[in-house]
């Protein structure tokens, strides 16, 4: 664990930040209630259908603050007072970043349903630090190929080579998040995602540029989802069940494949803050999210769908079919880890992504 020296600037910044964060928290809290839980979350956790049962059962108000990207989430924590937040949703691969900053509390494994999780998504390499578990995977899925099966040949979607073929020139969108798409580029050139080094960057850049040359747009979640749903493009690089499942009712032609080269496994975890003033309730919240009912509600959240990590999630047969629940063992066997670069390689990857975006 690293401890940064306190400079006058950092003291000034922390005081200013604390004042801003306190104001934001007060606004987020709204009307006062007897008991409250403060959660830093991704948009799928703000669905009332997910939160209401927990709030009613525990007579508590869950105050949520959405963020995108671990850096933005950790910045909110930096700007807050210790104890302001109780739980956080975080990319599983980034749990060590929170641990390194001394933010998280070890989770009691005996009080959480670890035995019921898909074994491949326990993510021990990321969620266990120095023998202690700091995060539990709550939801996962794949960054792979999302497509409209009425517009493309589904057989072509079994190979990543199709993404750079002339046949689909101008029919492709790329999901605008560098880590998973660089992971897919690695798979396309036969490199394992867990073994990406700086030496691989030139080959990865060449592959990304080929993808870009075929693409109509590079879009964040809403833009890429809209492009696929409206027929602007027929293929989404980096798409998966998180794009197609939620739209299945309106647009059953949308589907995803796990190509022969594999796919990138994404996963999100829940962590509890070390300075939480309400650890019992924070644990209850995590237990609820990990329960069969909570898992089903989280998996089918209005913001985006994804696979529940708990095999006992109380999904309906139709929901399981949409999420291709029964095919998961095969998918997981072919999926590769989300790239988890160190800070230096991460910076170089992002700069490579910037070059790709600027390429004409």
């Amino acid at each position, binding site marked *: 664990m690293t401890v940064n020296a306190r400079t006058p600037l950092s003291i*000034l*910044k922390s005081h*200013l930040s604390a004042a801003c964060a306190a104001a934001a928290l007060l606004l987020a809290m709204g009307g006062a209630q007897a008991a409250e839980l403060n959660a830093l979350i991704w948009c799928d956790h703000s669905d009332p259908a997910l939160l209401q049962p927990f709030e009613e059962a525990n007579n508590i108000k869950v105050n949520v603050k959405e963020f995108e990207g671990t*850096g933005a989430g950790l910045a909110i924590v930096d700007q807050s007072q210790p104890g302001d937040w109780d739980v956080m949703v975080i990319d599983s691969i980034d749990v060590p970043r929170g641990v390194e900053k001394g933010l998280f509390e070890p989770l009691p494994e005996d009080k959480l349903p670890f035995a019921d999780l898909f074994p491949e998504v326990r993510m021990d390499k990321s969620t266990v630090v120095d023998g202690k578990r700091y995060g539990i995977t709550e939801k996962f899925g794949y960054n792979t190929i999302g497509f409209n099966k009425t517009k493309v040949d589904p057989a072509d979607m079994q190979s990543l080579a199709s993404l750079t073929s002339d046949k689909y020139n101008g029919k492709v969108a790329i999901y605008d998040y*560098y880590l998973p798409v660089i992971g897919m580029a690695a798979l396309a050139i036969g490199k394992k995602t867990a073994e990406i080094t700086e030496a691989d960057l030139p080959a990865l850049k060449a592959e990304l540029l080929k993808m870009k040359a075929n693409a109509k*747009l590079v879009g964040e979640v809403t833009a890429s989802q809209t492009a696929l749903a409206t027929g602007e493009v027929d293929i989404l690089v980096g798409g998966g069940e998180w794009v197609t499942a939620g739209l299945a009712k309106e647009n059953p032609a949308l589907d995803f494949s796990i190509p022969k080269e594999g796919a990138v496994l994404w996963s999100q975890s829940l962590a509890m803050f070390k300075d939480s003033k309400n650890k019992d309730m924070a644990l209850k919240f995590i237990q609820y999210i990990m329960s069969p009912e909570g898992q089903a509600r989280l998996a089918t959240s209005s913001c985006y769908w994804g696979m529940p990590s708990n095999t006992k999630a109380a999904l309906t047969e139709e929901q399981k079919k949409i999420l291709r629940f029964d095919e998961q063992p095969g998918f997981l066997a072919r999926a590769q880890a989300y790239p988890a670069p160190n800070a230096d390689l991460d910076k170089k990857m992002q700069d490579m992504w910037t070059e790709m975006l600027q390429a004409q």
Partner: protein
Amino acid sequence: MASAGNNSSALPWALVTPALAWTLLFFVLPFIAMGFSSLTAHEGRGFTLANYSQFFTDPSYWRAMVNSLEVTAIVTVISILLAYPFAWILAEQVPERWQRLALMLAVLPFWTSYVVRSYSWLLVLAQNGVINRALTGIGLVGEPLQLANTRFATVTGFVHFFVMLLTLTIFANLKQLSPSYRKAAADLGAGPVRTFVHVVLPLTLPGIMVGTFLTFVLCIGDYITPQILGGNNELLMPQLVMMQIGRRGDFPLASALSIILMAVVTIAYLACARWLKIERA
């Protein structure tokens, strides 16, 4: 007498103190913090110029500024060309009693959310959108054009907004213009074109420049429109700034890029300053 004198000199300060305090608290202090931050290393100690040197040495970073300036220049020029005649029609051709209603109708679309409006443009310009359907329907093009997710789409979204802004500033300027100027020009034998070029246009230059400066500042700093309509086929400066924050939380580099952007806006202000004075001769 001394006491009265002190009171009279204290009153202006008392009146201006809230504005000064507001500026100090919400502009000067954050700006100083951002300046310090831009000189530090991400997750490191000590001061460094590395964040600034990255901008000046990495072509993809530098390119973002070039893209921003190009888009801003195109938007500004098109907006002026569209807004001036519109403002002139409103000020000169629409009867006085209908002018308020006409202005309100012109501004009406801007009562909707900026984000919603951008997404609406995305749907209008999409492959299956209204424009492409119309063009293919009447046989002007065989295949739908790629309009969405391009610089053209970004410029369209911007122009839609800034034409209105410029119209308002130019309209206000035209309304201030005394009819005597035109009468005097006519008396001296100038025709309508000559009167416009040599009298009306120079006198409405302040309105144009105020609108131009506002367009420049708002356009070069906007993240939403290029992000939604541009399809990330090129990055503009605000997108580059946001990119540093999302996953890596690199606030020092984001701060340095923001300071550079502010420097460009300052240069634009200095270029327009002559016309941005509140008092007019």
